[in-house]
């Protein structure tokens, strides 16, 4: 008989090995390279030059601002829509509707991006409907929503993908709200808005925040959609890091890695916040 502690350690070992070696090791290597320790191209003097350069460069700051804006806007819009959707759905839980609205969660982001692009491009479905309604004459009359400075295409794609995701989590939390409590509130004279604000919202609040955090962290660090639908300058942080990484000039690598490390640190903070919240969620 092996002891319980040994047993737990053995059970956890494979998963922890994968994460510590392939993920932790990768981040460690990124850290070393960001510090300028890069023996392969003769850089063996570690230092903070890359960070100094990155943090003072307007390119990085523009990129960071854009990233915060896109992630923030996508998360905020998705969250509000998701709560509304969940409230509407909880009384109409058909199998088909449930299936349909889970679809965006499973469809790959790339497919979503291509689909949204075909709707919002100036010759896309949206423009065609606008033309059919006589709102526009030429494709050019339709607002440019792709590769634009407001990142409308990126945000729309994220909203399409993430709203159902948040809604599912909120829906699960809504099941915990006893409908009796709502009825009690109603007999005490609470109107629909008051019932939402004083009875429902406090119960689903941790779930809403936890789900939003996941979406924020994800949109903050995801690459594909901004790479495909984003403007040329500034780009979101992951795209900036990738471009630096792919640069022919190998000395740009420490900068790419510095961006990676900053990205990892920020998202790790979100992860810590998420974990705290989900613990409260379990307790609540």
């Amino acid at each position: 008989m092996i002891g319980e502690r040994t047993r737990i350690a053995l059970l956890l070992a494979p998963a922890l090995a994968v994460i510590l070696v392939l993920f932790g090791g990768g981040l460690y290597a990124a850290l070393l390279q960001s510090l300028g320790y890069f023996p392969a191209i003769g850089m063996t003097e570690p230092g903070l030059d890359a960070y100094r350069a990155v943090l003072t460069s307007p390119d990085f700051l523009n990129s960071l601002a854009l990233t915060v804006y896109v992630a923030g806007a996508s998360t905020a819009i998705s969250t509000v829509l998701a709560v509304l959707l969940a409230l509407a759905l909880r009384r109409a839980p058909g199998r088909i509707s449930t299936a349909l609205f889970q679809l965006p969660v499973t469809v790959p982001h790339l497919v979503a991006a291509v689909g949204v692009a075909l709707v919002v491009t100036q010759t896309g479905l949206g423009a065609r409907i606008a033309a059919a309604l006589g709102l526009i004459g030429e494709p050019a009359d339709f607002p440019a929503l792709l590769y634009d400075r407001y990142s409308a295409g990126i945000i729309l794609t994220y909203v399409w993908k993430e709203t159902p995701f948040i809604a599912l989590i909120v829906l699960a939390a809504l099941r915990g709200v006893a409908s009796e409590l709502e009825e009690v509130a109603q007999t005490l004279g609470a109107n629909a808005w008051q019932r939402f604000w004083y009875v429902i919202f406090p119960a689903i609040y941790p779930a809403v925040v936890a789900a939003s955090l996941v979406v924020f962290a994800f949109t903050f660090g995801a690459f594909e959609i901004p790479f495909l639908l984003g403007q040329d300058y500034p780009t979101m942080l992951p795209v900036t890091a990738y471009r630096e990484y792919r640069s022919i000039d190998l000395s740009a690598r420490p900068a790419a890695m510095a961006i990676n490390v900053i990205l990892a640190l920020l998202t790790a903070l979100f992860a810590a916040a998420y974990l705290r919240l989900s613990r409260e969620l379990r307790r609540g």
Partner: protein
Amino acid sequence: MDKRNRSAGIALALAAVLVTTPLLPLALWSFAGEWRFPDLLPASWSLRGWEALLAPGSRFTEAVLNSLVIAAAVTAAAVVIGLPAGMALGTHDFRLKGVVIFIILLPILVPPLASTMGIHLTFIRLGLADTMFGVFLVHLVPTVPYTAIILTSVFAERTGELEEAARTLGAGPWQAFWHVTLPQVAPGVAVAGLFAFLISWSQYILTVLIGGGTVITLPMLLFSAASGTDPVITSTLAVVFALPAVVALLLALRYLNPGNERGFLGVGKVS
């Protein structure tokens, strides 16, 4: 009550329209012949997109096969690795449990892009870059956390009583696991596997970084088509690329408990 149901119905209909809006042009374009602005529907239909994908010289078949092989291998490995971890986290309390959960959650929230760029050099040195095996390895980073976390919640709902009953009936620890635990957690394992498959199947940037253009997968074809100008080819590829997601959803609805959508998707997200 009536008013409530009606507003719920309207919201639902609206949600259905919004969900299908971006998928509709994909389906239409993939079979479109001529479709000029401002026509609402294609003027003619054709199989040009599908023929192009299957034409000699197209790398479509190779890409689909690569995607399938990698996703299948990743699914198997992620389940086998995630199952014991989920068992440990779901059925035991121990010091450092919070830390372990944090470590396992990290790759879900911290973009694996960062760590993969970091590990690329090491992979080159080890000869893992530009190989299917290398791609398989980096795909484990975003998948293992999901299988582990999903299976943790599956095991957390188990009390161990059925296993105790089995033990008193003469089953050894392994027999109890094989004959009682495993059949009981099978639906959860299936969900975890579906997740791992979809995540690996959808993976673009990790494959590009480590596969280096040698390992061609479906999203890479889609990406280059999407950067081009032919919506027919792009849409056809997108339809194929979206297929497993649709199949997975149908499977989940068919075989998993209704009302259990939290178990299916509530825990995670697919990129």
